[in-house]
């Protein structure tokens, strides 16, 4: 690879969820002028009406009870002309897309892309809701889709897609994500999938043998032998979710206070007794650098971790454990087009572009580490093509895994509060 790899810089923060909150200014959205003006009524008492489109109560989507989201308007017409010379506003996690692919898109359509990032989903959602950011393309997690369809007081927040303008969805994407479509958005009316990933345990193979990893599984993260060398994500759903499963739970969306408390205590054990660290960059940056021996890991993070290995360290030191069968977590991220998009036609092209076999693959293999759900990707060939190291073979995601693995999805406000309270207690250090 001649020249500098674009990822090879300290400013590269390309993880799926950037929780570098410390550098951020503040996330309580400064109340928008609209909110101030709307303050004539007591806030929070007027139900979201959604521009006169009554979407009603949408039931919580679960893998075993998929939801077909009601249409909150019309998709753009197929003959809408592509906005020429436009600036496409993309709102995404930091560095979650390969610059070269974005460049290729700009060149092909003669447009420019303006890239705005958020540090975590809550920040992204708040800024879209308040209108501080008005993107053409947005990357919501699946648990927010139905809420975005219903919208805030100002109306729905994402618009229905015109599938005729996104032929790559039917052509290239796993049927489970295109037809019939995913459980959170049957028929892919509003979203297309972006990446798929599992949540497992990453470990240093030079310190833990594969056999030990296999024998211990999740317990690697709670093994006192690794005191001071354990990293865990600081995202509340992912963190508590894995602790729930490790404790023997089978519902990663549980509302059982006892289970949530036990999960909280398990994470506090990592923080206090095992001197672990809750952070975003444990897997993709600090494990390859050697600071940690074991870490909670999104599969995409560990696949991309090779770019952080110190010079002279073999890729073989990276290992990834993910349970066989039904005790693993799996998820996907999505791309959607907000209602207020100024370039909706170009946005459709953008979605289609990233579902293109070649460009989607380049984005994944040369930069991102997060796999797209393409029928063309043969799991075994990823290892032969050196996209995924042989020692990380469990980080490869297959379509079948989505039928057996556990998926975290939207919670009711009451249950969400239990999770957040548990998370507050963890942040307080107990």
């Amino acid at each position, binding site marked *: 690879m001649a020249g500098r790899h674009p990822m090879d810089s300290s400013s590269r923060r390309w993880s799926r969820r950037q*929780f570098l*909150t*410390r*550098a*951020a200014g*503040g*996330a*309580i*959205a*400064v*109340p928008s002028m609209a*909110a*101030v003006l709307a*303050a004539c009524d*007591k*806030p*929070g008492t007027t*139900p*979201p009406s959604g521009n006169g489109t009554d979407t009603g109560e949408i039931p919580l989507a679960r893998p075993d009870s998929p939801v077909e989201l009601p249409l909150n308007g019309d998709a753009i017409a197929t003959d809408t002309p592509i906005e020429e010379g436009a600036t496409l506003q993309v709102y995404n996690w930091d560095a979650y897309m390969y610059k070269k692919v974005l460049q290729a898109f700009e060149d092909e359509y003669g447009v420019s892309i303006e890239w705005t990032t958020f*540090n*975590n989903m*809550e*920040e992204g*959602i*708040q800024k879209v*809701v*308040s209108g501080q950011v008005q993107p053409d393309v947005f990357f919501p997690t699946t648990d*927010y889709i139905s*809420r975005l369809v*219903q*919208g*805030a*007081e100002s109306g729905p927040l994402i618009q229905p897609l015109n599938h005729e303008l996104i032929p790559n969805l039917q052509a290239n994407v796993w049927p489970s994500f295109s037809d019939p479509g995913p459980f959170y958005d049957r028929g892919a009316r509003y979203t297309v999938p972006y990446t798929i990933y599992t949540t497992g345990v990453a470990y240093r193979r030079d310190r833990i043998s594969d056999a030990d990893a296999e024998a211990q599984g999740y317990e690697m993260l709670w093994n006192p032998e690794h005191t*001071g060398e354990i990293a865990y994500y600081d995202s*509340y759903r992912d963190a508590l979710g894995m602790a729930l499963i490790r404790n023997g739970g089978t519902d990663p969306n549980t509302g059982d206070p006892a289970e949530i408390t036990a999960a909280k205590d398990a994470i*506090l054990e990592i*923080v*206090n007794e095992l*001197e*672990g*660290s*809750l952070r975003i960059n444990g897997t993709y940056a600090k494990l390859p650098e*050697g*600071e940690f021996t074991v870490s909670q890991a999104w599969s995409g993070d560990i696949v991309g971790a090779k770019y952080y290995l110190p010079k002279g360290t073999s890729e073989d030191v990276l290992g990834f454990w993910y349970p066989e069968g039904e005790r693993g977590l799996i998820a996907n991220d999505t791309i959607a087009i907000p209602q207020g998009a100024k370039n909706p036609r170009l946005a459709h092209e953008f979605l289609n572009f990233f579902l293109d076999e070649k460009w989607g693959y380049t984005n994944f293999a040369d930069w991102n580490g997060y796999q797209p759900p393409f029928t063309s990707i043969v799991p075994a060939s990823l290892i032969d093509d050196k996209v995924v190291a042989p020692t990380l073979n469990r980080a490869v995601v297959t379509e079948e895994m989505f039928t057996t693995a556990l998926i975290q999805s939207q919670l009711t*406000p009451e249950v*969400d*509060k239990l999770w*957040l309270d548990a*998370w*507050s*207690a*963890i*942040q*307080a*250090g*107990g």
Partner: protein
Amino acid sequence: MASAETTAEPTRRRKDGADEAAGRGGAWFPGWYWPSFALPGTLWLLVLFVLPFYTVLSVAFGTVEPLFRSPLPVYQPWWWSFDTFSETMQKFYAGDAVYQQPLIRTFAYVILASSICLVLGYAVAYYTARHAGRYRVLILVALVSPFWISYLMRIYAWQSLLASDGYVNDIWSIFAAPTNWLSGRPVTVILGLVYGYIPFMILPLFGSLDRINQSMLEAGRDLGASPARTFWRVTLPLSKPAILAGLVIVSLPMFGDYYTNDLLGTQRTSMLGNLIANSVFQSGQGPEAGSLTVVLMVIVVVPMLYYLRETKRAAESL
């Protein structure tokens, strides 16, 4: 300190001016002239403090948007709800009292770190003011120079120094088993606070010690006091206002500090500021973040009032 004087001043001037205009001539200023000098400061205070703080109150006593749970501030006090506030308060003492430990930690760390700042800072300021001779400018520049580099950069440097395979451990391991400094050790966080805030202690102390009239000290020695006694009876009392000022300047921001622990500690050493930062970034926790801010505000008002009372007393006794 001087605030009592400055507010008294315009009235007196205005009276003089009025007298002059009425009788002996000279410059006359309209009644609004001198008070108008306070306008920029008042505006500053209104826009950058009163208004934001009112917004914080409105968030704390407000509600959340039902679907996305983003904070919805309530600006009308008659609609304020104190449910979240009292719920947050209960986390300090009722049930599991999950917030009690961070509160205790905050006080312990701030008191310890401020004390260390005072002892170290006093020594440095004393030496610079009295014994540094021609090097004093150099020392002062050296004290201020870290500010040329952003605090974040300096703490990142400490992160790598304190890492398990860092230089600090290289030296430390000569004497003891290597330690994982960044895994939530109170000592790391306290020293981090000292490191971050000590210049703010040294500078006012230096200013005060430098201004002590040499003849006072000579008088003390002339009257038979030992050097130690002179220091104790003359220098120290004379520098008391600066000590108080330094303590206030360093301890108030320490109470709200969250990034030092964020970068050098873990949840094991989390302070009140971390709780606020965390709830700000979680969905639906906006009112809780506001409530915690109000708690912090009340906490820092106490030392502030003590400081104001003491300086007022000192000003009167002069």
